[in-house]
C-alpha cells in the first residue's frame, strides 16, 4: 500500500511538472545546471509557445 501510494505521489508530481527540475538534474546530469528558477521560466516559455490546451 505504501509503495503504491509513493508511486502515485511520484506520478502526480511528474504529471504536474512539480518534479521536472529534479528529473532534469537526475537524467541529464549537466555539468553546469541552470537554476531551478531559470529552468522553470524556460519550461513555461516552451510550453506556452505552441498549442498546449485544447477545445
Amino acid at each position, binding site marked *: 500500500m505504501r509503495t503504491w501510494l509513493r508511486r502515485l505521489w511520484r*506520478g*502526480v*508530481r*511528474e*504529471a*504536474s*511538472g*512539480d518534479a*521536472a*527540475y529534479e*528529473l*532534469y*538534474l537526475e*537524467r*541529464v546530469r*549537466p555539468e553546469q545546471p541552470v*537554476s*531551478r*528558477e531559470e*529552468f*522553470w*521560466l*524556460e*519550461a*513555461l*516559455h*516552451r*510550453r*506556452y*509557445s*505552441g*498549442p*498546449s*490546451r*485544447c*477545445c
Partner: protein
Amino acid sequence: MKRPLSVLGWTALALLGAGALGAIALGRGEPVNGLWFVVAAASSYLIAYRFYSGFIAARVLALDDTRATPAERLDDGRDFVPTNRWVAIGHHFAAIAGPGPLVGPTLAAQFGYLPGTLWLIVGAVLGGCVQDFLILFFSMRRDGKSLGQMAREEVGRRGGMIATTSILAIMIILLAVVALVVVNALKDSPWATFTLALTIPIAMLMGLYMRFWRPGRVLEASAIGFGLILFAVVAGRWVAEAPEWAAVFTLSGPALAVAIIVYGFAASALPVWLLLAPRDYLSAFIKVGVMLALAAGIILVRPTIHMPPLTRFVDGTGPVFAGTIFPFCFITIACGAVSGFHALISSGTTPKLLMREGHARLVGYGAMLMESFVGIMAMVAACALSPGAYFAINSPAGIVGATAEQAAATIASWGFPLDPRTMHDLARQVGEATLLNRTGGAPSLAVGMAQIFSGTIGGERLLSIWYHFAIMFEALFILTVVDAGTRVGRFMVQDLLGHVSKPLGRTGWYPSILFSSALIVGGWGYFLYQGVLDPLGGINSLWPLFGIANQLLAAVALVVATTILIKMGRMRWLWVTLLPTAWLVIVTMTGSYQKIFHPDPRLGFLSQARTLSEQIAAGAIPAARIAATERLIFNAHLDAAVTALFAGLILVLIVEALYEWYRILSGRKSAALQESPYVATRWAEVG
C-alpha cells in the same frame, strides 16, 4: 486455461455493453437510468481499445518497441523527456480535454439523448481516437513535428499552408465561441462573476509564489490556489446577498464581453508566469478532479434521464440551435467524438514524452476515449434535467420569451410541460435571479452537475454552492483556453508578420507583442461581441461555425494520415482513415452549404441577411434599430464568408492530396517517407 477465460470475459463484457446500449436505444415510454449510459460507453470503449486499437497498432501502424523513440534518442530533460506511460496519458488528457465535450453534448441534447450518445461512442471509437493515435504516432516517428510541418512534407507545400491557415482561423472562432459560453454563464449573475473575477488575483498570487518564493513548486501553489478558489465560491454568495456589492458584479452581456476581451489581451501580453501558467495549473487540477467526481456522482446517484431518446427537433426547428439532426448533431457534438484540434496536441508536446512506440496506443487512443466519456457524462447531466427546464434555460428569449410564464407556454406547446414556478424555484435553489434564456450550455450543465453533486453531498441545501462551483469550474478552464489560445495565436501572427517585417516577427519585442496580441484579440473579440448582440443568442451562429471548423481540421489531419499510410504501403488498411475522412467531409460540406445557403433565415446566413434587408426596405424595422440591423446583415455575410473559406480550404487540400496519392500510386513520385532513421532502443524493458 487463460485464453478461454479471456474469451469468456470479453464475451460477457460485449453482452453487457450490448444490453446497456439496447436499454438506452430501445427503451420507449419508460424512464432510463443514467447508469446505463456509463455502462454502455465503458463497455464499448474497453472492447474498442482491446480489439480495434490493438488491430491498428499491430497491423496498420506496426508499432515497433525495438525502435528508440525521440524521447530516448534526444532526451534533454526539457523538451524530450522519457515519461512513464500513465503520467504521459495524464498529461495528454489534461491537454486535450476542454469545454467542447461538455458544451457540445449539452447543446445536442435538443435532438434527444440517443443520437448524441451514439455518435459520442461511435465517432470516438472509429474517428477521434484513430485520428489522435495516428497523428501521435506519425509525429513521434518524425521527432515531434507539428501537423503543419507533416502536411508540408508529406502532402505538399500548399497542404502545409492550408493546415496552418486553418489552424489560425479555427483558433479565432474557437476563442470567440468559448468566450461567449462564459459571457452567457456569468451574465446578470453577481455570484458567478465575483467568483470568476477573484480567480485572477488568485492565479497571480500563485504565479508570484512559483516565480519568486518557491520556484516551480506547482503542487504547493495549486493547493493554495484551490483553497482560495473554494473560498471565492462561498464568498460569491455573500456578494450576491449584499445589494451594494451585487450591483457592482451584475454585468450585462456586452460589458462582460469587453471585460473578457481586455482580459485576453492582458493574458497574452503579460509574462506567462504571472497569469497564464498558474491559472492553467489550477484549471488542470480542478478539471481532472471534477470529471472524476462527476463520474463517481453519476454512479452513486444514478440519475433518471427525463429527456426522450428523440425529440421533434430532429426536423431542424430546435430552439437551442437551428438545423436538422444530419449534419448538425455531428457538428455540434464536435470534440467529444472527433476533434481536429487534438491533432495539434498529438503533434506537439506528447510525442516527445513517449518511452516506447507501443505507448502511443494507450496515450493517443486511450486519452480520446476518456474525452468521449466526459461527453457522455455531460449528456447524462443535461438529460437528467426535465426537458422543460432544459429548453427554458438553453433557448434565447427571441424564441421562448423572456418571462417564465411565456417560456412555459411556448415550451408546453412543443409537448414538454413546464410549470413557471419550477423555473422560479430552480433559480432560487441555485442562488440565481433567473435561469431563463441562459444559452450556451454552461448553465444547464451546471444545474445538472449540481443536482448530481448535491445528490451525493449536501442535498438541496448545498445546491447553490454546487451550481456556482460548477460554473466556476467551466468558466475557469474556458478562460484558460482563451489565455493559452490567444498566446499561441499571437505567436502564429508574429510568425506571419515576420515575413513582412523582421522586427514584428521577434516574439520578445514588446511593440510586436502588443500589436500581434491586439490583432488576435481583435479577431476573436469581434466575433464574441457580435455573438453577444445577436438576438438569436450567438451560439446559434457561432457554435456550428466552430464545429465545422474543428471537424474540417480533423479532416485535414486524417488526409495527412492517409497520405502517410499510402507512402507506408498500407493500402489494405486505408479504410481506417478514409472512412472517418469521408464521413467528416460529407458532414462538414453539407453543414457548410446549409449554413451559407439554406432558405431558413435561422439557419442560412445569406437568407438571414436577405430577410433583414427586406425588412429594412419594407420599413418594418424602427429607425432606432436600423443601424443595429445593418450590423447584423454585415455579420451574417461575414459568417457566410468564413464558412465558405473553411470549406474552400479543405476542398483545395483534398484535391492536393488526391493528386499526391495519384502520383505516388501511379509511380510518378517516389513514396519517400520523412521519418527519422531507425535507431535500436537501449532499453530492454521500459515501463
